[in-house]
């Protein structure tokens, strides 16, 4: 009987020697690879600059005097950064109409977002997890509503709001936004909720939960990424809306988009008001986006089943 003992010693490499990587590729293929990734980076960078230029321009213009803005382009700031001033923002803070409409935007956007998320999530839960006759047809109908363009509803809705006596009010604008936000919200959330393992809901049912408890304690926390995404979309859409505001809001109840447009129409050279106003109206959605964006990529379900 013989015993085989493995006496081979793995090849040792002296410290400080670069490890040899995977088999070397040919010079050409490496060049092409390097060029390819460089090209992609260049394209991405160019696109980024294109996208950012107007925003940066707006930000800079909002920090320059009217005289400067009318005589030279914003990019001259690169050579003369000392000419920037916060005067425009100070003036804006004293501008009743812009501040008022900025506040109106908040008054319109926050309820429009909250209502769509809350109603949408409740409806989505029911459509996903509660059995009732006609459920699937109802869902099909709601999905069909997604494709109805806003424009076809404007005149009938204006008449409806008129006869209800709410035309021109903030409530009318909110109602319109909610009505048009809901179908997509329900569609998105229902599909997301359906992807939650059925066992989880059944476990909660066995643990003593009624539908609303299960919704609040299980489905909402797990569905948080989808809800956050939806909230961002809805928030941005309503915040940036001009069309609905133009039709349904009187100037007293108008949001910032409406007022900025008025300013532009009346005094097109009025950069000292439009600039900071527009920039402020952009900052809020950006803050919202960056605050919630991490939920887009979060895998909350990991480890729950199996």
């Amino acid at each position, binding site marked *: 009987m013989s015993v085989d003992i493995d006496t081979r010693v793995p090849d040792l490499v002296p410290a400080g020697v670069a490890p040899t990587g995977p088999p070397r590729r040919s010079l050409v293929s490496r060049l092409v690879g390097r060029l390819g990734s460089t090209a992609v980076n260049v394209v991405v960078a160019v696109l980024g600059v294109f996208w950012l230029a107007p925003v940066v321009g707006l930000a800079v213009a909002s920090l320059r005097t009217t005289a400067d803005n009318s005589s030279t382009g914003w990019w001259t700031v690169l050579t003369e950064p000392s000419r920037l001033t916060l005067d425009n923002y100070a003036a804006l803070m004293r501008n009743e109409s812009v501040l008022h409409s900025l506040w109106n935007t908040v008054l319109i956007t926050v309820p429009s977002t909250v209502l769509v998320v809350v109603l949408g999530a409740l409806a989505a839960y029911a459509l996903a997890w509660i059995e009732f006759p006609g459920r699937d047809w109802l869902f099909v109908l709601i999905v069909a509503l997604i494709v109805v363009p806003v424009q076809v509803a404007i005149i009938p809705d204006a008449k409806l709001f008129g006869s209800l006596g709410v035309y021109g009010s903030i409530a009318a604008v909110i109602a319109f936004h909610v009505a048009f936000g809901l179908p997509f919200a329900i569609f998105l959330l229902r599909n997301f909720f359906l992807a939650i*393992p059925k*066992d*989880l809901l*059944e*476990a*909660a*049912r*066995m*643990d*003593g*939960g*009624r539908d609303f*408890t299960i919704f609040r*304690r*299980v489905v909402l*926390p*797990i569905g948080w990424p989808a809800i956050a995404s939806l909230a961002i979309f809805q928030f941005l859409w309503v915040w940036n809306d001009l069309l609905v505001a133009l039709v349904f809001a009187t100037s007293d109840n108008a949001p910032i988009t409406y007022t900025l447009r008025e300013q532009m129409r009346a005094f097109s050279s009025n950069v000292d008001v439009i600039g900071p106003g527009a920039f402020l109206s952009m900052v809020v959605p950006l803050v919202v986006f960056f605050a919630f964006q991490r939920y887009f990529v979060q895998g*909350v*379900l*990991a*480890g*729950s*089943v*199996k």
Partner: protein
Amino acid sequence: MAEVALAEIGKRYADGTRAVENLSLQIADGEFLVLVGPSGCGKSTALRMIAGLEDISEGTLRIGDRVVNRVPARDRDVAMVFQSYALYPHLDVYDNIGFGLRLRGMRDKEIAPRVNAVADTLGLTEHLRRRPASLSGGQRQRVAMGRAMVREPAVYLMDEPLSNLDAKLRVQMRAEIGRITRRTGVTTVYVTHDQTEAMTLGDRVAVMRKGLLQQVAAPQELYDNPVNMFVAGFIGSPPMNLVEGVFTDDGGVLRLALGERNLRVDDALLHTKPGLRAYLGRRVVVGVRAEDLRDAALDRADEDTVLTAEAELTEALGSDLYVHFSLPVPAVVSEDTRELARDAGAEPQHERADRTAVVARFSPRSTARAGDRISVAVDTARLHVFDADTGRSIH
């Protein structure tokens, strides 16, 4: 703690399919009952009807002294362990276990000692603040158990709780479940497709097939006296060997013709199975457990009870030597054997093969190896006999 009584329970779906038919079971207080059967046999549906997750189409379900057909799951005082564990991913172990108590309006002060006690029993104390995602499979399984235990329910329902674990852990958790249920004394209904789990855990085992209950009995009884070919083939590992044969009365001596062999059968068989007299001279299915086939080379055996064959494959397990061979007898093909083959993952036999595969469990001292000519002694007193048409046991 309560007894569970199913009386003629049935489940019909809207499209007319019947998942469970006429299921009657009386589960005693504190009993561990295992529902076992191949996939699609209705065992999970039956469990879900007891849980209240599935409507009961027919029959009456009692838990304790209440009829609970229309009582929602949360009010049935039952707890369930899911195959997937179904842990809440957004809650840590502590909150997962305490979730049910919290939903029932219990205060934190009352919840804490109960959760801690359960965590202690299950060895989860140091993991209480971890989320399910960072737990191992075995730990998740324990949390799922803890969630059921903490509620101190009248009945535990377990739906294949071990099937997501690897083999070693499964054995360990199986023992743990047995210990916990025995200690708490809570009535348990346990669903599995694994007959080893069924045999080791159950006080009684209910075998189901295609929505119909086949047999309920204690594990040993089920093994020793299966009521039909299906139960015979399903319970036991390796499964019972089934071969066609004919019994004859040869001048007061009972004989069994297996292909060209004619074995002398122990008279005891006629005493334990008097019904066999009616089948003399008729084709029947003979069942032989692997352990009732011994190596005739090791002990002296009556020449008249020995089969000879060529060993095709031997598996030495240390404690036993499994010897596979085949007999020149047409294979038994029936609805039962097809279903059993499907369950074992084998191709169902459509045509009648002219040889029947047989497994024998030899002593490890046997020197039989693949290719050897072997002599197999049949313990004829322990044969099982089934009606070839109905598959029912003859006794």
